[in-house]
């Protein structure tokens, strides 16, 4: 039995999703421990976003289960999502509301205490003070990403899901965001599931990576040692092999 402190932040067990007869995710199982950042890697269409959508409860698995701190997402969705948040490039906040308005609305939705203070603090942390009263729709994609990340931090989540969070950021901003997210896991007890196509970033940020291909986890391990274990010079080289020739990998 896990105690509350030692319980995984996220437990995904035998997750499967079929669209008709086409499998999108097959028998995916993994956990994320407190303070751990796990990278979910794979080529386009590998099943990363499908997996994230099932964790968020917006896509029903065909089989398997997802628990956030031991709470089953399907059975107790609200309680599970109360301690979860996410940011994704394909889910920007409404463009017809200002940064402040969006954050205030979502802070209320997530039941954030002292929401004015929390929102003001996040606006400052994510360097959004000058855009406070600007509608999100007129912000650059990088600025919108920062707003989405601020929203993702509103409820001080125990599980943070980030789908390519730095995809549209310039290198300096991306580095700054990575540092903030590292601080999030180091200072608190939350865990992070991170998808990215930037392998250097993954090496920097992730404690562990999972390689998905055709909906299955092919490899799992430390991003700094995994390439050598499979005879590759870098994580990028390993990624390309997983994407193009998954059957050639050593077991």
């Amino acid at each position, binding site marked *: 039995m896990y105690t509350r402190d030692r319980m995984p932040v996220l437990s995904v067990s035998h997750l499967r999703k079929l*669209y008709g007869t086409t499998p999108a995710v097959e028998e995916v199982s993994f956990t994320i421990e407190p303070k751990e950042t796990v990278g979910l890697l794979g080529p386009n269409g590998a099943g990363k*976003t*499908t997996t994230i*959508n099932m964790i*968020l*409860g*917006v*896509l*029903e698995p065909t089989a398997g289960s997802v628990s956030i701190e031991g709470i089953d997402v399907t059975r107790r*969705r*609200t*309680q599970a*999502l*109360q301690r979860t948040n*996410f940011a*994704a490039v*394909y*889910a*920007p*906040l*409404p*463009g*017809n*509301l*200002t940064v402040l*308005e969006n954050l*205030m*609305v*979502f802070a*209320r*939705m*997530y*039941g954030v205490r002292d929401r004015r203070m929390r929102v003001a603090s996040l606006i400052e942390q994510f360097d959004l003070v000058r855009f406070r009263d600007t509608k999100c729709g007129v912000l650059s994609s990088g600025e919108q990403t920062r707003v989405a990340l601020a*929203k993702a931090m509103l409820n001080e989540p125990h599980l943070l899901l980030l789908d390519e969070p730095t995809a549209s950021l310039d290198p300096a901003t991306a580095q700054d965001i990575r540092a903030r997210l590292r601080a999030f896991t180091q200072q608190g007890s939350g865990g992070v599931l991170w998808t990215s196509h930037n392998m250097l970033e993954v090496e920097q940020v992730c404690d562990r990576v999972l390689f998905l291909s055709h909906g299955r986890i092919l490899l799992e391990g430390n991003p700094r040692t995994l390439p050598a274990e499979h005879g590759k010079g870098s994580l990028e080289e390993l990624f390309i092999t997983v994407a193009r020739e998954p059957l050639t990998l050593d077991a």
Partner: protein
Amino acid sequence: MRFSRTLALLERQWYLLRGSPTRVVPLFGFVVIDIVLWGFITRYLDMTAGGVDFVTSLLGAVVFWDYCVRVLHGVTMTFFEDVWSRNFLNIFASPLTLVEYLGGQVLSSLFTSAIGLLAMVVIATLLFGWSIGAYGLMAVPFVLVLFLFGVAMGVVGAAIILRFGPAAEWFVWPIPALIAPFGGVYYPVSTLPGWMHPIARALPVSYVFEGLRAIAAGQAFAPGSLAMGAGLAALYVVAACWTFARVYQHAVRTGLIARYSAETIT
């Protein structure tokens, strides 16, 4: 259920309204135009068909029916805000429950439809001498039944849009026009051919408008028929919410929530 989460949707609608005159004007613009048009029609009918008070009966029907339609619009427009801003993922991946989400739409509609009702009452009273006081306190339960039925129509409309995509809005806007002829909104149910009577009796609005006409004409009104209308309206609200929940479950199962811009998942 947590009321604060429902309030988040109301807060969102408030921000949208205060920052957008194009959202504010329709709250009262179209209904005022309707009242002015029907006000002159009823005035003309009063002049030609001496002795009959069309202002109270017919203009009153227009005011109350337009209110019911405004409730439908209030619910569906709140839903459309999430459609237009592609916000489903942010909304449905939050702790918000379906009841809280629908509750937010209803609460928002309560306020926006009240603005429309107030505008109609003011214009009908000032320009055409119509008086809501002619119905006495009975106006309150009648309005409540119409509100409930408007909510039911709105939630069904939102379910249609969720299931078939944004283009399906053209199935939603004509719903009141389909119901009005059967509901005896502008004329007694007895005017309708026999085959339409069972449909009229299944619609709560028929009890409301029969009752309103009876009161306007100074005739006796059976409270039991109001109770029937209220019971039916409550039943329709439950059925509409159940329908929305089923459509939502389908959308979660097929992946439509996450990929709503595709409109259908095949």
